[in-house]
């Protein structure tokens, strides 16, 4: 059986058997007369440990098949060029500027990106197809076998290299000079520290360092332990509940069974600067409010105002806003990890990975009838109050 057949037959010689040696495995004299270029190629391969065992044209030169294949490769190249040109034309002249309110379903601008994608995709794909067709149908078919040289280096080489390496160590005399060992450690250690210093000194930030606003108010309060509702951020006065646009909220603004996201009415209170502050203000139905009042945690006593209740809008699991409010079941659902909180039971987590109830924001009204975060004490005075527990995800020293 010839080498060619044995390579192409499914069940020819099994791996491990070597092919019949082809002509050209022996060294040839490249200066001998009559040496062809391909003889040189084979000799080069031989010197690289490669045997070219099959090398034959795929198509008969000058045959109908060859002409046909050549034509299809040329056509693919030409079509690629055409698609490429189409891309350039579209890129320059297709209307691309966003037309604003004039945009409709058939506006050409809508098709700018698809046209770019299709033309570029076609151009590249056709170019690739042309090359692949060329290689697979016109280039000679070849099977080459290269020998691997796995395993360790020759033992001799190993010994010589090992000797060279140990000689380097020996030359330095580090083994014989313990003083130097200590000196190197002493000299290099500070350098290692210097490498770490900018990272530690520049990057590390004490998580308990108070916000500048807190420092200005003279309070040493870690940012985890307060939010924008802390009265110290409002000159000691209770902080108003405001809409995102900054307008304060009266009880009548929230319809029964309605809910609204509220922010602390302080400078930057509605921005991400106080990202832990947003709360959900809910106006419960009478029977629901009664149910909640009947089972309030001790911590939450006095935090409701009438039938209104406000919960932190930062999930105690991973910090997403659990803002999907199910009016019928009185549940809050967090869309990130599907924790569900029972509004009528102190926003206790009833399903999903969250472990803690959402914090309740104490509600009261100020002189002008707007909602504030605060409680009325026994003396009848309105006292500003933050959430009574840290909001958001758990952390080590919580």
């Amino acid at each position, binding site marked *: 059986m010839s080498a060619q057949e044995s390579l192409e037959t499914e069940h020819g010689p099994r791996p491990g058997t070597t092919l019949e040696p082809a002509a050209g495995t022996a060294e040839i004299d490249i200066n001998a007369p009559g040496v062809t270029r391909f003889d040189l190629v084979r000799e080069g391969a031989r010197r690289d440990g490669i045997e070219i065992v099959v090398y034959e044209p795929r198509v008969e030169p000058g045959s109908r098949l060859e002409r046909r294949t050549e034509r299809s490769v040329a056509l693919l190249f030409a079509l690629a060029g055409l698609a490429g040109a189409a891309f350039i034309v579209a890129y320059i002249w297709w209307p691309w500027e966003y037309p604003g309110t004039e945009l409709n379903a058939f506006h050409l601008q809508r098709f700018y990106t698809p046209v770019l994608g299709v033309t570029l995709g076609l151009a590249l794909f056709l170019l690739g197809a042309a090359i692949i067709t060329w290689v697979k149908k016109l280039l000679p078919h070849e099977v080459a076998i290269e020998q691997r040289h796995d395993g360790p280096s020759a033992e001799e080489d190993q010994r010589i290299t090992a000797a060279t390496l140990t000689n380097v160590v020996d030359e330095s005399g580090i083994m014989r000079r313990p003083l130097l060992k200590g000196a190197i450690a002493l000299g290099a250690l500070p350098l290692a520290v210097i490498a770490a210093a900018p990272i530690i000194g520049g990057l590390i930030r004490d998580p308990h360092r108070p916000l500048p606003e807190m420092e200005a108010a003279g309070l040493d309060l870690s940012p985890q332990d307060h939010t924008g509702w802390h009265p110290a951020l409002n000159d000691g006065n209770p902080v108003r509940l405001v809409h995102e646009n900054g307008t304060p909220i009266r009880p009548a603004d929230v319809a029964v069974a309605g809910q609204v996201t509220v922010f602390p009415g302080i400078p930057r209170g509605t921005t991400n600067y106080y990202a832990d502050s947003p709360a959900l203000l809910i106006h419960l139905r009478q029977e629901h409010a009664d149910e909640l009042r009947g089972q309030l945690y001790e911590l939450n006593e006095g935090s409701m105002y009438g039938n209104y209740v406000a919960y932190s809008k930062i999930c105690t699991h991973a910090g997403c806003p659990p803002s999907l409010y199910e009016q019928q079941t009185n549940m809050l659902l967090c869309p990130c*990890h599907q924790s569900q909180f029972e509004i009528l039971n102190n926003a206790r987590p009833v399903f999903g990975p969250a472990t803690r109830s959402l914090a309740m924001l104490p509600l009261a009204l100020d002189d002008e009838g707007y909602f504030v975060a605060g409680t009325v004490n026994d003396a009848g005075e309105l006292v500003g109050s933050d959430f009574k527990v840290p909001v958001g995800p758990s952390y080590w020293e919580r």
Partner: protein
Amino acid sequence: MSTTTEPGPRAKAERPSRLAHAGRNADERLQAASPLRTLLNKVFPDHWSFLLGEVALWSFVVLLLTGTFLTLFFDPSMEHIVYEGSYTALRGVEMSAAYASTLHISFDVRGGLFIRQMHHWAALLFLAAIVVHLLRIFFTGAFRKPREMNWVIGVLLFWLAFLLGFTGYSLPDDALSGTGLRIAHAIMLAVPVIGTWLASSLFDGPFPGEVIIFRVYIAHVFILPLLTLGLIGAHLALVFKQKHTQWAGPGRTNTNVVGERMVPRYAAKMVAFFLVVFATIALLAGLFQINPVWLFGPYKAAVVSVASQPDWYVMFLEGSTRLFPAWETRFSLFGEHFTLSPLFWPGVVLPGVLTVLMLAYPFLEQRITKDNRIHNLLQRPRDVPVRTGLGAMAVTFFVILTISGANDVVAKSFDISLNAMTWAGRIGLIILPPLAYYITHRVCLGLQQHDREVLAHGVETGIIKRMPDGRFVEVHQPLGTDLEYTGWAVPKKMNRLGALAPAVRGFFVPIERPAAPPEVAPPAPNGHDDTGTGEHTRTDVERR
């Protein structure tokens, strides 16, 4: 047929051309003739599955090209500005400069949206190719000695790509990416002892602070690409040095490589393949919208929407976080209270354990099988049922987590209770992987048995023969006598033996001459021929 034809003109006829002169000039300075020849001659084996890693490589090249373009327009700043660009729906809205510049790229840069979408699609393809490539390496045992180091580099590259992806989609500062950062922040907080310090240091204070986008940006465009580029270089250098693995097959041994020399065939095919990968990304980017950030709005801590899913390669962690039960450990030590967040297990421990297991796998297998030999031949997955079973187990685990990462969407689409989906995920995660192991193991053994059967009795021909005593038997075509299984595909259909091959090529008109009719060999004395090739579709009654 083993003799080769003589291509090209005769060597003697060549006159020193300008090209030869240039070559000689270069060689006088670089002495490159011999190493260049060795490079051109290097032999590569061919198989479709060897292209998977190449998809990843070419996607990365597209990522570098498109990413560089995007940096020319992106502003990684969290400074508050009011949007005044041409997208009418968001005009006058307060947002970060990062988000505004993403809108700018999408609406006010010619072709900007196209490049942005190419970048994102290329990232998805990059990760997908890495994962599929990793599975290929795993299931075929290509990680075995001497390639353990390259497996380790590959696993590290997966995590680098993962981080590149995550930092990339965090940059636009839209509602979705901000939510992702918020969860990442919570996972950092969940690290025991140093959690708050870690989070506060990276975000420079409480979440989100004013610097995180810029820091993520530097990681995304400098630190991570640099590391990735370095490791890709090492990865390819090792493939080059250790030579590619190959499938078992005719002429292929553990000590050779059978294939084509690198230049021109292999190199040309590589270039063409780059073009095809690039074309696929361009088509995806042009035809399929991805991450339309203008619909999400700027990130605000109080805003989120349903179906907030990360990119697909992060979804397994999203899923693990969704499925993990509400277990929070609280304890007191020396009068201080400490908390172990429920995010710690699925968000920190799980990815850590998975990484360690993956890194250690080649060494564990080596230890258990006590196989310290060098392996250059790939294994068919069926021939290593235990490893294949373990792989199926891992894939099942990953798929369940990934589906659970979108369990709200599944619940909504198929009208299933969300709670039922979560419970199905929790139970499935425990029960299905071992089941997958068992089934895969059995299937592997069955396939092995069938291979042996075909080798012993031959290929089923579909011809039913009635015996004189009334029995019916199927006629089998033997492949030969005393064939041993050699780790390569066994033909199982008659047309694999050439029985049903088309006579002449050409769809409308024949484009080749019909082959000369085979010479009919005189019947062998023992009744069937030894080679059993498809040339003669002789049949033989199965002997039992």
